[in-house]
């Protein structure tokens, strides 16, 4: 006869409510882990999109995501001619804010040259850019539809294709423009400013500037050697893809990552305390029954089993419900929540251990209950 099961059945409403409360707490823990994973994933997705082996940026800079980098537009041709380089593509990055259909729209604009590295690999809908100007590929998270016109700077851009899962490390959805359009958007002065500069005798600023050149190394060639070759030029810095990803995770999103990590640990600690209190209270409610069981000759293992089985049931139900809630709600979060099976399994294990440890207080109380309490009248 399973006493834990019968006790749960007897207090089913209260037990399920307790599990629901616990599931919300554990769902929160799981969502924090998911947000952390999503943050890293989003940060990396943009750097991985060009499928580059290395990045060439302004000398002394840590690449286009960690610091501003400006290099001449013709750098690409020089890099492409290096031994071991298969392909190279110029690329620009900038954040813009515009209004679309009466709503604020924050976008992360990537300028690239179609046919060269830097653009998206595949589209969720529509087609790639074919015209020489004013076309745009937008991520579905922008809320833009195919054929929609978006005002950026002084020009309207037509959405011809949709990508999926392309966001910046700040969470803004990505749009792709042709390199020249993106360069003009980023570097061209507004007419009043340009006129003032002309009056002052300042030569007109060129717009053939890019933020980085992404490089794919030829099969069999060494990326390390190409990196070393580029570094010999004093005005450029070359970073491997792994180095770029390390900068992104260890530098760009590091504080957010640590903040979320710390918050997750705090939440888990709070959960442990709450679980311990719940189990202790549940045991307190059963002191007389425990005393009766002891008096009629039940061994300690029967009573410990009762408490531990209830703790484990609470852990399993609370975690499963929490995981279900978060998997249903994750797509409604403003930023990506990435739930990975390994994280869920590790958290499930942690919750089981926490519940077992937390039940220790209840077990200790139960073992201290004197059988004479049952005879107390």
């Amino acid at each position, binding site marked *: 006869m399973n006493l834990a099961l*019968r006790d749960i059945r007897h207090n089913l409403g209260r037990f399920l409510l307790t599990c629901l409360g616990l599931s919300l707490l554990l769902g929160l823990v799981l969502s924090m882990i998911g947000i952390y994973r999503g943050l890293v994933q989003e940060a990396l997705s943009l750097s991985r999109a060009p499928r580059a082996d290395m990045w060439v940026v302004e000398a002394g800079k840590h690449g286009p995501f960690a610091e501003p980098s400006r290099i001449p537009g013709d750098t690409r041709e020089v890099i492409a001619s290096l031994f071991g380089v298969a392909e190279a593509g110029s690329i620009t990055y900038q954040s813009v804010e515009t209004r679309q259909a009466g709503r604020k729209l924050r976008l992360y604009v990537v300028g690239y040259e179609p046919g060269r590295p830097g653009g998206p690999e595949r589209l969720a809908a529509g087609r790639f850019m074919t015209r020489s100007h004013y076309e745009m590929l937008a991520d579905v998270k922008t809320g833009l539809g195919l054929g929609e016109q978006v005002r950026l700077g002084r020009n309207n851009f037509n959405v011809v294709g949709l990508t999926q899962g392309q966001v910046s490390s700040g969470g803004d959805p990505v749009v792709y423009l042709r390199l020249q359009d993106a360069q003009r958007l980023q570097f061209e002065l507004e007419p009043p400013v340009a006129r003032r500069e002309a009056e002052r005798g300042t030569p007109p600023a060129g717009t053939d500037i890019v933020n980085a050149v992404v490089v794919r190394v030829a099969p069999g060639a060494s990326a390390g050697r190409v990196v070393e070759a580029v570094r010999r030029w004093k005005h450029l810095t070359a970073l491997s893809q792994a180095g770029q990803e390390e900068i992104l995770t260890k530098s760009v999103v590091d504080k957010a990552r640590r903040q979320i990590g710390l918050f997750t640990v705090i939440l888990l600690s709070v959960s442990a305390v709450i679980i311990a209190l719940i189990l202790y209270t549940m045991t307190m409610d059963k002191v007389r029954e425990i005393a*009766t069981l002891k*008096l009629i*000759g039940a061994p300690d293992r029967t009573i410990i089993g009762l408490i531990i089985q209830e703790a484990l049931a609470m852990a399993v139900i609370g975690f499963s419900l929490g995981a279900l809630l978060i998997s249903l709600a994750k797509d409604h979060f403003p930023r990506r929540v990435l739930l990975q099976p390994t994280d869920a399994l590790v958290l499930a294990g942690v919750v089981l251990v926490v519940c077992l440890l937390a039940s220790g207080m209840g077990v200790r109380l139960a073992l201290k209950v004197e059988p004479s309490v*049952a005879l107390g*009248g």
Partner: protein
Amino acid sequence: MADNASRQPLVDIRDLSKHFGQGETRVEALREVSLQVYTGQVVGLLGPSGSGKSTLLNAIACILEPSSGWLQLDGQVVYDGKWLQKDLRRLRLDCIGFIFQFHNLLPFLNALENVAVVLEIAGATSQKAKERAVELLSYLQVDHRQGAMPSRLSGGEAQRVAIARALANHPRIILADEPTAALDSQRAGVVMDLLRKVARDQGAAVLVVTHDEKIFDRFDHMFYLRDGRLAAPDQLPSQRAVSLDVDLQTQGGIP
């Protein structure tokens, strides 16, 4: 009543003493108490509050170690200046049945399960435990309520189930702590009749701790405790006096 001299007592207590505390705070809860309860007997343990009834009951139940004396239960010497049995829990499980004032049925088990659980703890299979539980509930004429939860049982029904639970492992000693205190006269009489039936049919010794004057005339023998001592047979107060003493003590009338 058979001749006690020719029988071995199921509960045999010799010079049992128990004190709590030391020095100025020392309290003598039991002072050299000796008593015997024989098979088939239903005996009452009476006395005012604080007289040592609960201490004596706890000592017989092997949940409170006496300070000195000798205690034998169902032919086994369990205490002789120290506990002699290693597994007192098992002794309780096998030899003693308990009946409580408020029945103490486990609220999360139905009537049948409340009886069967004792058998399963003792090692019986689920099937055998259920069969025995049904048999006992039937014996106590409460088998028609076997699926009912304790909260759905009347006071009398709950106490019958509690008696069935006490009998589950065929114990030869039944300790009942105020079994009729929560019942009216009629139901109290029924419970006492059942205890009498159990003592007769099962060959058990039933020791009832009570304040309840309604049942004073139902005992084969009464032990009266006062200040930790058993009153000598010739000093045993009349039933009316016991009742008055108990009432006044319970109400705090006598210091």
